[in-house]
């Protein structure tokens, strides 16, 4: 049956030192929208430096799951705990709102599919990148600007665009700006919902290359939602496959894509061009 749940990978890990404990741990998470199911009984861990892809067809609950674990949406049941910078595990839904919002703009990043949702369209690129720095108390204009400028460079936006508003940017540039805006505080965990979704193929490829470079340079942990298995193949270490709100298969990316076990995953994999 396609409902059979095949989960591997967690058995061998016994939590000891902070570096050997998961960065994020999701347990029994469900989100019910009235009569409709968002996601059901999802549990998984994300390890420091790991890229986890959540794949599945439209309506399978990927965005719901991502929004719940990033605390943008309250789940119906379940817990999400996060290893704070001091090594302590914090229950994301039990934190004070101040603590959670602080986490969201320092140690976490969130890259929206549509850059308009993640940028301030009416302030300059430099201020978009510098905002988080100012939010955590930086008060030296020169150094905020220098840091913004460096980050624009890292996402391949010309330094002379620093005072332009994102309205004047192409879709790909906006998305790269959104990434810079998120990474400037050097978060340890970044959530991404279809970050290449609205872009055409060549722009997508460039963005994926850039993301891959940043993720490995910064040692980022990433949870990326995509319905594009090629994106998952390129970026992720591990995959969760969702269907009708449930995780029906999970495992190392190569294993899942080369040797899918659940019939539904086999169908998904066979229905796309191999990469």
């Amino acid at each position: 049956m396609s409902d059979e749940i095949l989960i591997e990978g967690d058995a061998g890990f016994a939590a000891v030192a902070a570096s050997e404990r998961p960065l994020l741990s999701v347990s029994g998470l469900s989100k019910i929208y009235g009569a409709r199911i968002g996601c059901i009984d999802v549990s998984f861990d994300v390890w420091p430096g790991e890229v986890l892809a959540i794949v599945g067809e439209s309506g399978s609950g990927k965005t719901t799951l991502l929004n719940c674990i990033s605390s943008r949406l309250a789940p119906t049941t379940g817990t999400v705990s996060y290893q704070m910078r001091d090594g302590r595990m914090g229950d994301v839904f039990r934190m004070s709102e101040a603590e959670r919002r602080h986490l969201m703009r320092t140690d976490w990043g969130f890259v929206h599919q549509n850059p308009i949702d993640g940028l301030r369209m009416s302030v300059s690129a430099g201020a978009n990148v510098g905002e988080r720095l100012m939010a955590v108390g930086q008060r030296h204009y020169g150094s905020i600007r220098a840091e913004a400028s460096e980050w624009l460079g890292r996402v391949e936006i010309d330094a002379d665009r620093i005072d332009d508003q994102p309205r004047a940017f192409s879709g790909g540039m906006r998305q790269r700006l959104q990434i810079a805006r998120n990474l400037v505080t050097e978060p340890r965990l970044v959530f991404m919902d279809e970050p290449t979704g609205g872009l055409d193929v060549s722009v997508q490829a460039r963005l994926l290359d850039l993301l891959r470079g940043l993720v490995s340079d910064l040692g980022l942990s990433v949870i990326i939602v995509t319905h594009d298995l090629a994106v998952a193949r390129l970026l992720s270490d591990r995959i969760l496959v969702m269907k009708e709100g449930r995780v029906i298969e999970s495992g190392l990316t190569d294993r899942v894509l080369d040797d899918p076990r659940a019939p539904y995953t086999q169908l998904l994999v066979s229905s796309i061009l191999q990469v």
Partner: protein
Amino acid sequence: MSAQIATDAAPAIASYNFAYLDEQTKRMIRRAILKAIAIPGYQVPFASREMPMPYGWGTGGVQVTAAIIGPEDVLKVIDQGADDTTNAVSIRAFFAKVANVATTTRTMEATIIQTRHRIPETKLSAGQVLVYQVPIPEPLRFLEPRETETRKMHALEEYGLMHVKLYEDIARHGEISTTYAYPVMVEGRYVMDPSPTPKFDNPKMHRSEALQLFGAGREKRIYAVPPFTEVVSLDFEDHPFEIQTFDRPCALCAAENVYLDEVVLDDSGGRMFVCSDTDHCEDRRAQGHRGEMAGHPLETAK
């Protein structure tokens, strides 16, 4: 500001309750004022009433004044520093009629000063109340249009956005070009819009002996800076807050270090710079101070 009630109203104005508003409404506004004083810089919602003047003409300030004024008070009203503009004259006349209070143009004599866009040059003293007319009370509004979000930002002291605005100023103009409604941090806690006063006046708010009350009629908010409160203008370490400076004294009274208005004298480009605070200027001239155009009749100047 002695809290007298309706029975004290002069018989001549029996058709109005004392100070126009009914006692219930005044009590409601006073509660908002007390709360505002207790939490300096915090915007307290209140049930703003219709006043016999349109929004934008100081209905917030008028309601605050109406709630605190008593028969013994002496009221001064200024608009951009001047006592003699239509707006100032009509608000003064309004309270003279509905509260039968004495009015004055002299800063030192006033117990309540209602103001639009200026703080008097004469240092205010303990016991005086400065009532500001406020159009837009929310300093975060222009960058964050959602009220739910700005409230949360105040609650959680998330004020990074204020510096985003100042950053934009410097990026665009090489300096912080905000000259009016320059945001301040009150008592190290709430960021506040000082209403559209020139930033020149910001330092006067800091540890002022007078009570400062702010009323926004259309936006239904009251906030306050109690006496001796810390009021610090936001800035960057490498772009510190500075007030406007003028390279000449007042042309009428020779005052320096005051806020000057440019006055066009004729069609051929003649102009002069004079005190925006008309009472301060008149006071100095009465004391014998003479500027370079002191002989010039004020009527044509204004």
